[in-house]
């Protein structure tokens, strides 16, 4: 039987049926431009407003604090560049962490080239930022702290509320890239003192090409895209109506069923982690054992290349990833794994499996059956393994 087991939900998710159903009318008969004043346009406008309400409710934000974008990357870029440019008269110092997504890291590097100073906070071996480090790093000219809610590679969930309390007290804007967290973690932007929050629909069973940025009312921010008066003059461009409707529906569904879904995911996740630990030697779990995303499994297998592992799994019908999708084309080891203290060799041997709502026990059993075989086969071909473990009959 041909297997088809998808364990790459952190890269992207399939779309839920209900989400597609909500989008369909706006792909077909209701195709108006929401800026048009005729009824085609008004229909589209109403639909966006509904999606905005759904999104605001999920984050416990206000309706007029949600701005739709072209995706998580745009949201991150807008948040960081927008706040930096609008507040540079106050100061040019930004604080972030060493394990952010490239959408954050490369934006910070761009700002460094343009006269800003950026502090990259280290993380501990679990990938956790210490709130005290944030406090110590804040200077009079610090304008923004950007720390991700949950890491895309190792799943570690950051102490966002503690960091938010500090930035609030110090009067510094706080942005969090919550692309991986939304739909899996309770978020309350007021309780957590978050000023800006990025999210992306295709990570929680919505469509690709649409995301949002929450911007606390009163936040000084320059637009990233200039043009028409869409999104209350903050984000120009004809709105991606079907995408926005899909985002609204998907975030609503995610939070309606979160508890139940998380229970399922955590059970499967721990079964997978423990099963691998039991069956395979010289393996380590990356990220925090408990403060991690419900669906995230990231493990390093000594002596082998993550990429070979990935391709072998693919042949067995299992779709996983080595590190994040965005960097899977590059040969450098993951900056996240290096930041938690892994050596280059071990970082290269890591595998990320991210679970979704429709994964089953039976699928996990299958993975636990084939993965040890693959690892063994690859290790038997690995010069490193042979060197460490002594001779091998297959050489």
């Amino acid at each position, binding site marked *: 039987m041909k297997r088809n087991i998808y364990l790459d939900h952190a890269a992207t998710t399939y*779309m839920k049926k209900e989400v597609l159903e909500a989008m369909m009318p706006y792909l077909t008969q209701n195709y108006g431009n929401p800026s048009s004043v005729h009824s085609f346009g008004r229909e589209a406008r109403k639909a966006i407003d509904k999606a905005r309400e759904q999104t605001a409710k999920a984050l416990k934000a206000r309706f007029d604090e949600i701005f739709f974008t*072209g995706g998580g990357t745009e949201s991150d870029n807008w948040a960081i560049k927008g706040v930096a440019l609008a507040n540079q008269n106050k100061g040019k110092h930004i604080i972030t962490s060493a394990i952010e997504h490239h959408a954050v890291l490369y934006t910070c590097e761009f700002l460094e080239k343009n006269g800003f100073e950026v502090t990259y906070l280290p993380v501990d071996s679990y990938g956790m930022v210490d709130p005290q480090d944030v406090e110590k790093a804040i200077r009079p000219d610090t304008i923004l702290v950007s720390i991700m809610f949950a890491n895309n590679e190792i799943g570690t969930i950051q102490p966002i509320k503690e960091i938010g309390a500090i930035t609030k007290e110090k009067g510094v804007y706080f942005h969090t890239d919550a692309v991986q967290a939304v739909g899996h973690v309770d978020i309350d932007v007021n309780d957590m003192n978050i000023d800006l929050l990025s999210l992306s629909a295709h990570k929680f069973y919505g*469509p690709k*090409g649409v995301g949002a940025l929450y911007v606390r009312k009163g936040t000084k921010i320059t637009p990233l895209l200039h*043009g028409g008066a869409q999104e209350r003059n903050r984000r120009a461009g004809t709105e991606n109506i079907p995408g926005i409707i899909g985002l609204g529906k998907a975030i609503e569904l995610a939070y309606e069923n979160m508890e139940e879904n998380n229970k399922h995911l955590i059970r499967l996740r721990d079964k997978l982690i423990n099963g691998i630990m039991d069956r395979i030697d010289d393996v380590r779990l990356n990220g925090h054992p408990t403060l991690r995303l419900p669906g995230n499994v990231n493990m390093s297998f000594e002596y082998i290349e993550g990429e070979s592992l990935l391709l072998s799994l693919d042949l067995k019908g299992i779709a996983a990833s080595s590190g994040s999708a965005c*960097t899977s084309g590059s040969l450098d080891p993951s900056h996240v794994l290096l930041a938690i203290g892994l050596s280059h060799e071990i970082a290269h041997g890591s595998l990320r499996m991210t679970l979704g709502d429709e994964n089953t026990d039976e699928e996990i059993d299958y993975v636990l059956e084939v993965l040890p075989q693959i690892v063994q086969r690859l290790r038997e071909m690995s010069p490193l393994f042979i060197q460490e473990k002594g001779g091998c009959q297959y050489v």
Partner: protein
Amino acid sequence: MKQQIYLDNAATTQVLPEVVDEVVRCLNEDFGNPSSLHRLGLQSERKMKQARNMVAQLIQVPPEDIIFTSGGTESNNLAILGTARARKRYGNHCITTEIEHPSVLNTFQYLEQEGWNVTYLPVDSRGIVSIEDLKNAMRKDTVLVSIAHVNNEIGSVQPIKEIGLYLKGNYPDTIFHTDAVQSFGRLPIRPLEWGIDLLSISGHKIHAPKGVGALYIKKGTLITSLQWGGGQELGIRNGTENIPGIVGFGRAAQWIKEKISEDEKYISRMKVALANEIAREIPQVVFNGPKPSDGAPHILNLSIPGVRGETLLHVLESYGVYVSTGSACSSRSIRTSHVLKAIGASQQVAEGSIRISLSYLNNYDELSKVPQILKKSVDQIKRFTRR
């Protein structure tokens, strides 16, 4: 069923059923992230490649020079800000026109705040830029010229080829960008032959879904990214690709190409016939911008003295005819159109203007009803606004 005659295709178009099918298939089945190394990811990458080919074919450029974006606005922003940032050390001056789309004008205004000098060329009463004006405005430090191919409100067509060739011949280091959002799929465009370095296009103007566009970047043209991240689209446009949108864009481009080869003049013939009928039915009508027989194939901008455009729009809507006043992007603001002002239209004419815009999905049969509906609507309004 109540009749619906959709004549607002310059604002946005209906997504074609065959495009919807492709998009839905993508949403349902081929949902992989093209950056992923497994089969689903590779499948998405393949689909994206096909779409890139189809879009590139329509303007006869190498597919690898097409960068997908979230839409026309992003493409314009990327072209202008990206060029300005990449070529800062070569100069400090840009040239554009007074009648550009807000996504071009507001981006240049933003650059002005950063200390750039921007020249806004005027246009004549037809809405056309003069090459002489451009020649006079050119300076040694001009790094970018950005002129839209077709104006979105009045449909004037700029001599893009002439401008491009002039620039390449005399200022080879100056980058030439054209906003072709309204002309893509409606008029022939040949960036390679016309000296165009950057060209913005948008999906939802050619029956693809909203939320997808592209920027053509001629090989070797330096451009700084607007958004940083995972290295997608050659690192110029980072962020997970909107695969369903991109695939829909490709399918729509293919459809348009077939339509053009069947009957290139279909839309413009309908437009001219419609304009003639309207003029017969309502002799006092004023056509704004180019003559109906000139101009872009799909746009007709007209005013009827003594009738406010917005009132007319709503009465027409009650008869199932959908038009717009000015461009959709500015239709919610109360300001008079900057385009109509630039062509010297009086306040009264500007306030009275409506825009009718067609697509391949319109037909003669439905359009033949429009002049009478328009006449009826005007009469109805005039009864209430006797002075």
